[in-house]
């Protein structure tokens, strides 16, 4: 079902899991796009290990981007008014992760809804979680 308006939303409605692109090249390009070019942590597994990381990382803001993208993919008419993410543990480049969300509150009068968000790695461990508030058309 494509969600278009407030009446299409239901408490507990789940979205995902969706598998985003976590390839090293994408992580590196994302870091470059925001000007984070002076560290190997996003561009090179070996260099990242030398910096003390378990491998090259997916930038946290790309993780936030995955969550924004999931919302827009599943609820094309939603406008994200607020998104708050907690970087619980690093997302590693070249390792799959899954992105999911669930509606936790609906305010029909205000035309808003709240979602819980999370990104899990292949072991099922939550790496990033958060919440979002979206505004919907009537």
């Amino acid at each position, binding site marked *: 079902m494509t969600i278009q308006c407030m009446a299409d939303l239901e408490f507990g409605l789940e979205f995902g899991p969706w598998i985003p*692109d976590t390839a090293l090249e994408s992580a590196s*390009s994302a870091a470059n796009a*925001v000007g984070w070019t002076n560290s190997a942590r996003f561009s090179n597994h070996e260099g990242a290990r030398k910096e003390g990381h378990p491998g090259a990382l997916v930038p946290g803001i790309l993780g936030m981007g995955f969550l924004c*993208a999931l919302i827009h993919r599943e609820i*094309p008419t939603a406008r994200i008014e607020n998104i*708050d993410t*907690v970087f619980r543990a690093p997302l590693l480049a070249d390792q799959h992760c899954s992105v999911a969300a669930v509606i936790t509150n609906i305010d029909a009068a205000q035309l808003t809804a709240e979602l819980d968000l999370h990104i899990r790695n292949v072991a099922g461990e939550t790496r990033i979680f958060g919440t979002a508030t979206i505004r919907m058309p009537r």
Partner: protein
Amino acid sequence: MVDVDELKAKYLHLEFARSNFVVSAENSATLARLAGETRLQYTEPGHPDFEIFPAYLASLSAGRHLPIDFPSLGGIPVDGGKAVTSILPVPAGVPLKGRTHLHDIYAKSGRSGRMVFLVSRMEISDLADTLLALADSRMVIRERGTA
């Protein structure tokens, strides 16, 4: 152990940094496309309603920005998370202003010691001082000597 209430009294809500910047539409669109975004207003710089991708706004508040006289807590700050509040669409390619203050300071204690959380907030506005968005960056510092 640092007194969090003292830090709050001294530093909360005091602007400590100002910046002027222009966001490249192509850079924001690149990040949106890499994230798998499907909405054209974020991925196509030529779209009539193009605006900066929320996750790109989050990057603007990145960095270990603290007031210059903020005391050392001992540990190395790590990026604990980001938040973005959208008030109005943020345009690319035009001058914007960022004003940053510490929005929240709190601590959590665990078995391995106490963690101090510092939330810095950048208020993003246009040159007419119309507030467009808020970008929060949450830094986490493990206090030394409290384990």
